[in-house]
């Protein structure tokens, strides 16, 4: 028996999407909620293909939501201070412990063998409280997906058998599409072995992870390849975490590489193929990060508007405030429907599923930028202050828009794929 909570439930297929109730509902008789263990989801998943059942999704959503409220919400401001404050080690470890990093991994790698619906619902709920952890989950999932697309099963298996979260994590420059702006290292081949040299900008999780995936070009080739490196290699020097707009606790560093030993992932020259295939799937996950941020922003604004008084009554009674809140709620309602549909398309490989995923991301991330700026606006002066969650969501929404490439170029690519 679940207790009354204002959680969002992502449903599958024809099921109706519910959203935060706008009217206060009479409190149900409280019962002790059974804490949902994500392992239950795994067990259930073992019996099915990547297609996730509604029950599993609900359980996963609940687990993620509870996790977020318990582990992320209380210290949001503190955690956001990184690198000028401590890193939220315990949250990261706990997330690892409950297998949030194993969602898309196959069973033989201790994974849940789930698809984008499961990853999305997890990211959505996590990002409602703190998208930094969402960013870490996304980056790692993207790295895993890259390796899966490249067929690097053995290497991936080796990494996934690691015991500690830091050894398990894979860093990836996930805010850049190497075909757009060519941030590439240089690879040198001697016999069957490769070494990498050069610089690489904005390696996300570079200061946390045990290994990194690096795009590099082999001399003489116009195409690029992906390589795996051990981040403890002596030839790697890392900058301090790069002070950035948002997702502070999902840090990135600049790397300098000096003849670093590297393992080829997949085949030479196929880097962009793997990237695009990974992006086809992961875009919808990026969209759900934006959705989570939107929900968090709306909720805080909505609650504030019901309490704060100006002009002699609660500000929610000013019709312009209602108008702004309404536009926010409409965006969220639409975004939920879009993501549900897109996830289904991706997981069941429907016709045109690649475009569904990308279109969802482009549109929803855009919506999130608009919505979160209103999210600050509704709180007036305090909306701008770090004591409240709105300013972080505003920064995070904009930050998320840059995942997997430069937005206008993503749009140009979208139409070029149709020509």
């Amino acid at each position, binding site marked *: 028996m679940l207790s009354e909570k204002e959680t969002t439930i992502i449903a599958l297929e024809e099921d109706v999407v519910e959203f935060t109730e706008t009217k206060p509902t009479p409190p149900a008789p409280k019962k002790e909620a059974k804490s949902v263990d994500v392992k239950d989801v795994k067990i259930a998943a073992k019996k099915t293909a990547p297609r996730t059942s509604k029950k599993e999704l609900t359980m996963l959503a609940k687990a993620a939501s509870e996790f977020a409220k318990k582990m992320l919400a209380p210290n949001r401001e503190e955690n956001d*201070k990184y690198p000028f404050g401590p890193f939220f080690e315990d949250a990261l470890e706990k997330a690892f412990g409950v297998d949030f990093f194993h969602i898309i991994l196959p069973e033989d790698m201790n994974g849940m063998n789930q698809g984008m619906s499961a990853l999305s619902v997890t990211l959505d709920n996590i990002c409602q409280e703190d998208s930094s952890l969402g960013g870490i989950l996304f980056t790692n999932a993207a790295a895993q997906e890259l390796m899966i697309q490249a067929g690097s099963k053995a290497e991936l298996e080796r990494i996934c058998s690691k015991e500690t979260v830091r050894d398990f994590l894979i860093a990836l420059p996930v805010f850049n599409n190497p075909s757009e702006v060519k941030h590439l290292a240089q690879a040198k081949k001697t016999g069957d072995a490769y070494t990498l040299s050069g610089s690489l900008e904005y390696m996300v999780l570079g200061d946390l992870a045990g290994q990194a995936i690096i795009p590099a070009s082999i001399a003489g080739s116009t195409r690029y390849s992906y390589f795996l490196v051990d981040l403890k290699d002596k030839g790697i020097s890392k900058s301090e975490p790069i*002070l950035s*707009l948002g997702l502070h606790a999902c840090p990135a560093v600049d790397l300098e590489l000096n003849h670093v030993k590297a393992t080829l992932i997949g085949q030479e020259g196929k880097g962009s193929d793997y990237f695009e295939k990974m992006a086809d799937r992961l875009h919808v996950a990026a969209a759900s990060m934006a959705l989570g941020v939107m929900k968090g922003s709306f909720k805080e604004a909505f609650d504030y508007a019901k309490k704060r008084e100006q002009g*002699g009554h609660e500000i929610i009674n000013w*019709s312009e405030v209602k108008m702004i809140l309404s536009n926010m709620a409409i965006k969220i309602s639409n975004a939920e429907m879009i993501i549900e549909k897109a996830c289904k398309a991706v997981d069941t490989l429907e016709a045109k599923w690649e475009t569904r995923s990308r279109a969802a991301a482009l549109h929803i991330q855009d919506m999130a930028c608009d919505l979160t*700026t209103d999210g600050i606006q509704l709180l007036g002066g305090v909306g701008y*202050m770090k004591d409240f969650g709105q300013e972080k969501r505003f920064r995070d929404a904009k930050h998320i828009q840059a995942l997997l*490439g*430069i937005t206008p170029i993503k749009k140009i690519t979208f139409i070029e794929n149709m020509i």
Partner: protein
Amino acid sequence: MISRSEIKSYLSKEPLFDDMTCSLKATTRQPAAMIKETRKIIELARRFNKEVIEPYALELDRTMQKDPDYLPWEFVKKANEWGFFTLWIPKIFGGHGYNIPSLSYFMEETGSACLGLSNLICVHYLAVSTIFASWNLSLISKLCRLVAQGEKTGVPCLLSTAITEPGAGTDVEEVELVDRGKVACSATKVEGGYLINGSKVFISSGHVSQWHMVICYTDLKKPSENMIILAVETGSKGFSFGRVEHKMGVKGCPASELIFDNCFVPDDLVLLSRDHTGKQKRGVKETCGQILDYVLASSRAGVSAWGAGAARGAYETALDFALTTEVNGKTLANHEWAQSMLAEMYKNVCIARLTYIETNYANGMYGLFKTIQMKPLFYYFKYMPMILLDKFAPMILNLASTTWLFRKIQLDWQSDPEFHRTAGWGSLAKFTGTDMGMKNCQMALEIMGQSGLRQDRRAEKILRDSKLLQIFEGTNQLNRLNLFKCLVAKNNPMIKVFEKE
């Protein structure tokens, strides 16, 4: 084809010809010498940007992220050395007397380099406008001369305006709202002066200011008719600083809490009280509204200029990125879609600029600066030698009749249409300029992708900074309503603004 009376009649239909043509009218009335002054100011600002702001802006933002309680005294001293705190104070008050509209251009220039540092210099002038709007000439002179003194000695004397309270943000900006609101900062009359009790929040530059113009109320139940403006010096008994806010951006400029605990202010430091507002043509409440609007009509042009600055900083950063980054084998700036976006950004800067410029034309002919920009007075004060000014000015300024005269000219002789024009345009410029700032920042980060996320590439900081502009000096929502009230509703009895829903 058309008679003179017909002309008059048609031009007084909505939209009023005078509401539409501030710049055109200014071509006939504005002193031409203002052009040269403006050019000098812009050159000065650009030099200051290059030498002082640009090398420091990112570093200060970093420092503030690490240590949010840091106060940038070094920079304030530097700005003081460059003379910025007296540049726009009229010569008769000991300043350098540059025309006020040129301050807006300065705010755009420095704002395009760093909004935080620009705020540190220019919110001082928000306070200067506040004291000007009281037209208490002898007190204005006294306070301004302290600022001038601070420049000479190298010990900066900044002024701040304290109006916002914890329970009243939007409410304090409008006399229609403040009575329904929850103001708590009271001024109680005692022998020889007043006692202030309460607190003020979000006061820009509070911690680094020497004097604070505190707007409080002698009757908290009817604040709109009991507004009083008092000058409080840092260090006074009963006055203390509270917290410095932890803001998302504009970190360089502290947003301070001021705490008053039976803080005594003598009668001779009262800028304006009911005793004065009661004497004017309009009623007390309306006069208070008029005075607030005088301040806001000019300060909002400034905030609009900051918006233009943010828009410009974002545009220039994006342009720089586009010129030096290759995508698909060619310079990003040669991709048509990028050119189109950059053109849109360029346009946004221009639009923002045009609005604050137009507002200042209006202010110069109908608003706060109208007396000082009358050609004869303007040139007289420009060319009169400082020695003579210093000698004779205090004498004239200390006369009660001079204050009375100015209040007559500026308060009583400002007609309703003029009042609406400046206040309405001030609001229009404010929300337009600041929205343009935000829009450009969003676009710049879109174009720059990953590169735009890093603090060391400038763009993300401008986004964080520019959001505040949409909130302070009246939220953009309030400013739209004020525009509606002043320029659309005017005195139409069927239309009510700020009515309870």
